[in-house]
């Protein structure tokens, strides 16, 4: 996975990563800001996500009504995402139209208007988004688990924020958040596609170099103390289906144990797809937990995965229980499989399989220029692009002994939150 990229920094602190790809006449551009829900405390939960929404509400140069049509008119596609640790805005355009995207991102880094009436209109939109999420049992269960797992660290609330704060936050709150975190020295611009690097660097410099840097935004850092013991919780709601999520505290993505745990994840629950684009992962039907839980009808489906984060977060198994099974017996069956991998070395063949699966998934993701541009910035949010470049090699170095140690260290009941969604028929809205 060695691809030549250019990494540099403007005098105002904006970091740039560029990668030429000439397979299609497209360019994908991503502007990343180091701000996410972990930078929020009540009563401002959800502020980073709402700020992201406000970035689509216009500047003087690109009024809201103009802004959303300009990209589409040029045949581009665009979107934005707010995560725990970062917020990103991307455009993928025909190569000869990328100028618009670059001008847009430079402009809205500093000139978003945050008009009062737009703030109010967007308040109800974000609340509507939250209400849509609340329709999903797994959102409600996940929120409860996240809250229980993080008593201290600001990972403890959902990215969308709490309703109480969505109702009370003001334009002044949002604008202050924007001005604090949206500065070039807190941002990374990544581009992949059909351009010539030196030429593109000149264009970017023309558009971005004059944006003044700002004080380095403070990043909240409250380390979560070791879990005091296993936490169990239940959430009740409508429906007929019981769900269970078991979340273990996991290291940050840049931690050396992450690779052993990634291989372990593949063995236990099937390989996780780290690509944002590039379509679909691989099935998990020969994974240990599928065979133990789904084949033997404790569950009708199972998934597992870690999140790629700056600070230690969670690895979560998600199960849809078989209607004939009780949560306790499903948990016992899962625990038996975890104990197996803690007590016995896995085979080198299983490890080799996991590596091949990861290699295949990266190959699939490489077809997509938007995905390639995504990786340039994504890796820098919690590590550096080298993390992406060395990922497969680091995975290939994992041994059965490493996996056993990782299983023993991290998959302990005292280190987890067990959450059950119990269907109770009609429930209050």
């Amino acid at each position: 996975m060695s691809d030549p990229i250019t990494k540099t920094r403007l005098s105002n602190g904006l970091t740039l990563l560029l990668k030429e790809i000439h397979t299609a006449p497209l360019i994908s551009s991503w502007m990343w800001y180091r701000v996410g829900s972990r930078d929020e405390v009540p009563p401002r939960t959800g502020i980073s996500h709402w700020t992201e929404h406000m970035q689509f509400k216009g500047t003087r140069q690109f009024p809201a009504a103009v802004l959303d049509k300009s990209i589409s008119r040029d045949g581009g596609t665009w979107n934005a995402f707010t995560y725990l640790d970062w917020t990103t805005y991307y455009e993928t355009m025909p190569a000869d139209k990328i100028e618009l995207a670059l001008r847009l991102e430079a402009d809205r880094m500093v000139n978003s208007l945050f008009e009062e009436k737009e703030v109010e209109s967007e308040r109800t939109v974000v609340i509507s988004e939250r209400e849509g999420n609340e329709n999903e049992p797994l959102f409600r269960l996940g929120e409860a688990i996240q809250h229980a797992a993080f008593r201290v660290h600001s990972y403890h609330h959902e990215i969308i924020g709490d309703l109480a704060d969505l109702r009370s936050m003001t334009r002044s709150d949002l604008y202050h958040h924007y001005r604090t975190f949206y500065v070039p020295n807190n941002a990374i611009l990544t581009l992949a596609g059909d351009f010539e690097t030196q030429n593109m660097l000149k264009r970017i410099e023309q558009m971005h170099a004059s944006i003044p840097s700002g004080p380095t935004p403070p990043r909240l850092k409250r380390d979560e103390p070791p879990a005091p013991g296993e936490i169990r919780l239940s959430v009740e709601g409508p429906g007929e289906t019981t769900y269970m999520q078991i979340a273990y505290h996991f290291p940050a993505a840049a931690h050396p144990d992450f690779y052993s745990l990634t291989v372990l994840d593949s063995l236990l629950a099937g390989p996780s797809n780290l690509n944002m684009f590039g379509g679909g992962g691989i099935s998990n039907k020969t994974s240990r937990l599928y065979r133990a839980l789904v084949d033997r009808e404790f569950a009708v489906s199972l998934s597992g995965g870690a999140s790629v984060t700056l600070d230690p977060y969670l690895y979560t198994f998600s199960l849809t229980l078989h209607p004939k099974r009780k949560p306790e017996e499903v948990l016992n069956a899962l625990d038996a499989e975890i104990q197996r991998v803690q007590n016995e070395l896995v085979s080198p063949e299983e490890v080799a399989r996991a590596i091949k699966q990861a290699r295949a998934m990266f190959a699939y993701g490489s077809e997509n220029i938007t995905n390639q541009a995504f990786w340039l910035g994504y890796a820098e949010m919690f590590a550096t692009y080298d993390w992406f470049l060395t990922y497969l090699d680091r995975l290939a170095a994992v041994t059965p002994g490493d996996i056993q140690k990782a299983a023993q260290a991290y998959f302990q009941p005292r280190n987890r939150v067990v959450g059950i969604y119990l269907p109770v028929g009609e429930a209050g809205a």
Partner: protein
Amino acid sequence: MMTGRRSSNSPAHGSLPGPEDIHRQVLPNGITVLGRSNFNSPSVVLSGYLTTGSLFDPVEKLGLADFASSALMRGTQKHTFDGLYAELEAVGASLGFDAGMHTTGFHGRALVEDLPLVLGLLSETMCQPVFPETEVEKLRSQLLTGLSIRNQDTSDMADLTFDEIFFRDHPYARPEDGHPETIKAIHRSDLAEYHRRCFGPRGMVIVIVGAVEPQQAVTAVQGVLGDWSNPDQAQDPGLPDFKPLTGTVRRHAPIPGKSQTDLVIGSAGPRRTDADYLAASLGNSVLGQFGLMGRVGDVVREKSGLAYYAYSSISAGIGPGAWTVSAGVNPANVDKAADLIIRELDKFVKDGVTREELADSQANFIGRLPLSLESNSGIAGALINIERYHLGLDYYQRYAGLVKAVSPEDVLQVARKFIDPNRLAIATAGV
């Protein structure tokens, strides 16, 4: 077998697929094979469909085609369920089937060196499934749980309810995944019988895109599927005439405990092969897609703040279509949102679109083509599209001209032809 050599027919940089680089061949047993190479990628996609689907479901066994298509991967004459997936997952490959109304699709992906493996498994699962009893029962439990989840999902239930009230006696009113009572009524023998009767090479299409020479792909398909025959393969049962609505109908699917209600409002829409399809597609773009969900998104989300999503779509398939607007709103705002949407539909059929609005959408349709054709999956989808609807191998090369030829008058005409604001189906699901 297949990798590495680029021929003179390889696509030029950034070129749109066309007759000079799409290879199409019909095998003696009726399978149509299409191939296009992409040596920029180390992987390969194989995708396609068989000409059987939910249309063949008996009413009392709705969901049969869907059940059977999932059951294909549950064991064959050569491999158990676990064995099939062991082969695939060992190399990071994937393969699956998915039944629709008229066709059953399949999609597989692998690193190019594993194409023979995936082709071989495709052939086995399609031609020699054995539907083991224990696996069928496990799958049934999974499908029934899926239906329980569906019945609690406001978006799924709004769509389902819309189909019921809009299509009424027409087969399109029936859900492809059936109902709990119909899934319980399906026996293992029904699956086997359905497969025996309805699966065969006639009408089958398979597309292979990736780091492989198209001619070699055809040879490979011939090798694993060329001998497949089913002289008794059932004919498509055809569709009855569709009777339009005579007035507005509403139905609400109550689902307690939900914070958001889903709303679907719709009218008739074009078939994919209708001459006015592109005019409808462009009109739909203006109505509820372009930018942040078009006019509908502007009115319901941007100006009124009522919804996170509000958009329009046209189904545009083989049979009668529907033109719908969908939104997710707080239960207290359903009527308000419905009124806003119906007013937009009124405006749309009264005044159509402006020249500028149409030009914006035309530019979008043409400009975004390279992005949709960037990956193997994107190209495979495009080739299936041109084959399914007989659009011609040069369709994407003619596409820009076809799009530019649509006028505002064409859009107004097609809007009036299909949408009647006094004869709408309005479906909601939620509290």
